[in-house]
């Protein structure tokens, strides 16, 4: 199995007031293509920071990060934006949909940035919304959708551009357990059908239960690691 994400000796320090906080300390992590894995740990353990660094949303102070064999250190911010646009999908805890766009327009927007023509955008967005169970709700604005439906739109948006990885930051945190589980099943289906790698940050036991591989962080270090078959 090929490696899609490789982190070597990654360090990240934040300044909090006058105190320097080690958010990540000497992280070494390899993620295989097609994984369905979770970064778990208590608040402040560094899981969101690591996810952001893998996604190129934040920069590490030192260390080497490679996604699809591409070293981040070699990328300009414009090339990094290109990489995120074409290779990485994001799902956030607070859904982060664009409120003035409808569900289908939110999904289409990523393809617009990619330069996909409008007919193809529309067709693909409808198809993906059907896949995540939102057929007939294309024209609803985010405020007209439930939390679970909004997160499904976010998942649709994350995978519509056929990324190699989807990074999901506590995707079930704002959902009730039933909705959360149905969302996890959806993401697991996407992972299996499309061979997309999913990396979660979570402290939700249900997410941990679904994850094939669980990396537990504590105080910015990898404290434990478990692998299982779902």
């Amino acid at each position, binding site marked *: 199995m090929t490696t899609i994400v490789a982190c070597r000796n990654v360090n990240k320090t934040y300044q909090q007031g006058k105190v320097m906080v080690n958010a990540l300390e000497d992280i070494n992590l390899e993620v295989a293509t097609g994984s369905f894995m979770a970064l778990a740990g208590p608040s402040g353990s560094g899981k969101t920071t690591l996810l952001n660094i893998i996604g190129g949303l934040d920069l590490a102070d030192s260390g080497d990060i490679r996604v699809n064999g591409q070293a981040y250190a070699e990328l300009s911010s414009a090339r990094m*934006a290109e990489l995120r646009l*074409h290779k990485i999908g994001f799902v956030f805890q607070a859904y*982060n949909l664009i409120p*003035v*766009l409808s569900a289908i327009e939110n999904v*289409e*927007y990523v393809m617009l*940035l990619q330069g996909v023509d*409008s007919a193809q955008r529309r067709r693909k967005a409808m198809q993906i919304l059907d896949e995540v169970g939102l057929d007939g709700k294309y024209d609803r604005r985010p405020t007209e959708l439930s939390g679970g439906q909004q997160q499904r739109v976010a998942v649709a948006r994350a995978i519509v551009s056929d990324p190699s990885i989807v990074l999901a930051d506590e995707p079930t945190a704002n959902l009730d357990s039933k909705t959360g589980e149905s969302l996890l099943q959806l993401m697991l289906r996407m992972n299996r059908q499309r061979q997309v790698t999913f990396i979660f940050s979570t402290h939700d036991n249900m997410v941990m239960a679904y994850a094939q591989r669980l990396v537990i962080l504590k105080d910015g270090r990898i404290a434990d690691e478990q692998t299982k078959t779902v």
Partner: protein
Amino acid sequence: MSMGFHLAWRNIWRNPRRTAVILTAVVIGVWSMVFLGALMRGIVQGMIQNGIKTLTGHVQIHPAGYLQDPSVNHRIQGIARIKSMVASELPVRSSLSCRVRVNAVASNARHNGGVTLVGIDPQDEAKVSFIGSSIVEGRYLKPDDGDAIVIGRALADRFETRLGRKLILMAQDTGGEIASRAFRIRGIFHAEMEATEKNFVFVTRSAAQKMLGMDDAVSEIAIVLPAHDQAAAVARRLQQRFAGQDLVVTTWRQALPLLTSYLELYDSFIMIWFVVVFVAMGFGIVNTTLMAVFERMREFGLLKALGMRPCRIVWGILTESFYILVCGMLLGDLLGLVSSWGFAIKGIDLSALAQGVEYAGMSRIIIPVVEARDLLNANLVVLVLGLLVSFYPAIRAARFTPVEAMRQT
């Protein structure tokens, strides 16, 4: 890209109250630019009109030396031939008038003073200068009036005279002698400027020529054209036509250098006014756009996380500003045009400030004039500077990293 425009349009209506506030500022700004620009242009047009109507015309033809020494020694002979040559060079709907114009002394039993004696063809002159339509007492000159004179209201007051009374005129004749003649006051005129009423007295051309021994000669030919801006071209043609003859052709701009300077000054005033209004408006635009940007910082973070390049964020915010500016400009233009045209129907009467107004050389009634270039300049100033000041908040939004932006609440 239509979706980007769509998004920008929807974004500006996310907070309708804020958009309404900034839109109102742009509308008022553009309205004031258009309306006050039209008012200033109206003042200038009134001044030009006054200047042209006060015996200047758009183009004047004088004998060489007359402008330095406006006496009977310098006169245009063979006027019938020259008049037909001039007429053949003029655009349709032009008018011309041949005049005798010399300095003279007017006197009656009580007073005397310097005036300008103007000998006119009454019918031709009525089409060229103010005199034909300015009689407020008595009547205008008739072609066969031998001893009739028309004087201004202010001169009549100063000389304590009235209709039917005599006025003696004295001036140097072609033989170098002092010629004098008594005229009877048949009409009193009113002019925009008191100085005009005090300075000019009108008799028929034949009466003036007879008094001064000029035969058929005149001092000047004044031409009025359908439009101000035709003057230079017509003057050029006439100069070529009269090349080698002792005639000098001047345009109103050359004849009224002070007014020409005023014109240039007003052009600068209008641009300064546009910029001053914009500066006030610009603070509002920057402030409101910054508020809108900070309110949506998480969203910009998301867009950057999705792979949007910073330049596209800048583009998106500028598009929003563009929509607000264009809507404001359209409404402001409409309001400016409606109010300018509304006031143009009757004009703005400044009679109450007549003395001050006259001192400044302005008309007592100001009719706002909307010029296409002012409208264009006002809109360009708002659009170009509006987009420029929107760059600041746009760049602020684009410079945050996705993580910094998404941390904002």
